[in-house]
């Protein structure tokens, strides 16, 4: 069950996303997400990075989550995922005093051939931080790299989870991972959109979310 605090946090993150213009709706030309699903919305969390006030608010909310999580999980290090996870992880690490590392999408291919940077990760309990999760495949890639380097990884934190489609939770669960998201689509729909969404946009998002698989199939994406 989602706690009241988590709901409030989710709506605040969603409102920050609206203020940053991070939620793009395209009713005529849908987007194809990584796993092949069609979606009328594209979420760009990187727009939060550039605005001081918005990023400070988002990082404060993420830090609140982090402090709560630290009561039950002993994380040693925050690991930012290339690229947009890196600044968020660094800012949260700065506020919590935890170690910080970052991980590339793939090893550099030259020199030390390192995938993890910022210091040794061997034996550390690491929390992977990224801006966004859709189908979870890129998270698995990062976690494989971290585990290969000797890190213990069981948890992932993302600012937003595109939780419309069924795959990600199962996929991550099979890898022994728990995904924590500060906001999901239910938060976006409940939040004040600051005039960013037209009535038609909101209706299209609601139609999409009522049956994302069918919506995808009707708009050139996967159907199963």
């Amino acid at each position, binding site marked *: 069950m989602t706690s009241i605090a988590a709901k409030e946090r989710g709506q605040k993150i969603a409102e920050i996303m609206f203020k940053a213009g991070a939620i793009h709706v395209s009713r005529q030309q849908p*987007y194809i997400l990584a796993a092949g699903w069609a979606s009328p919305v594209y979420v760009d969390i990187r727009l939060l990075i550039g605005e001081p006030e918005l990023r400070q608010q988002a990082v404060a909310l993420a830090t609140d989550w982090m402090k709560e999580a630290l009561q039950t999980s002993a994380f040693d290090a925050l690991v930012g995922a290339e690229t947009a996870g890196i600044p968020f992880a660094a800012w949260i690490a700065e506020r919590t005093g935890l170690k910080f590392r970052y991980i590339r999408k793939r090893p550099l291919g030259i020199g030390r051939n390192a995938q993890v940077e910022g210091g040794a990760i061997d034996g550390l309990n690491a929390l992977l931080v990224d801006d966004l999760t859709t189908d979870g495949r890129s998270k698995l890639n990062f976690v494989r790299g971290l585990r290969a380097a000797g890190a213990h990884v069981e948890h992932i934190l993302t600012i937003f989870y595109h939780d419309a489609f069924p795959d990600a939770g199962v996929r991550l669960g099979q890898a022994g991972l728990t995904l924590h998201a500060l906001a999901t689509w239910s938060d976006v729909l409940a939040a004040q959109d600051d005039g960013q969404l037209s009535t038609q946009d909101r209706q299209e998002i609601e139609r999409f979310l009522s049956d994302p698989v069918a919506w995808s199939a009707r708009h050139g994406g996967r159907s199963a």
Partner: protein
Amino acid sequence: MRELLEWLKSQKGGVSTYWEFQLRALKLRATEPEQAACLSLLADIAGRFADKYYEEPLPVDAAAGALDRLGKLLGKAVENIEADAATRLRVLNEISVSELEPG
């Protein structure tokens, strides 16, 4: 390489398709060494496209176009598996200067 083409035809063309294609093509070099150069070039093209759209929105038309182009390039390579050396070299050169999105 024919199996790779059949697999590609079943895909919808999200970024994950191109990462998976890249992995499959590179792995296939071990069992089809006579096609290694072609598979490497196709893997590079798919990887470049996936890297570009990993953090950018992929509109449905661009996704469909890229899937069609990759399918045609791979299809041409499959058609010419038994062709003479000059023809195969021409196909390799065509693939080497191709991209999956319109220039």
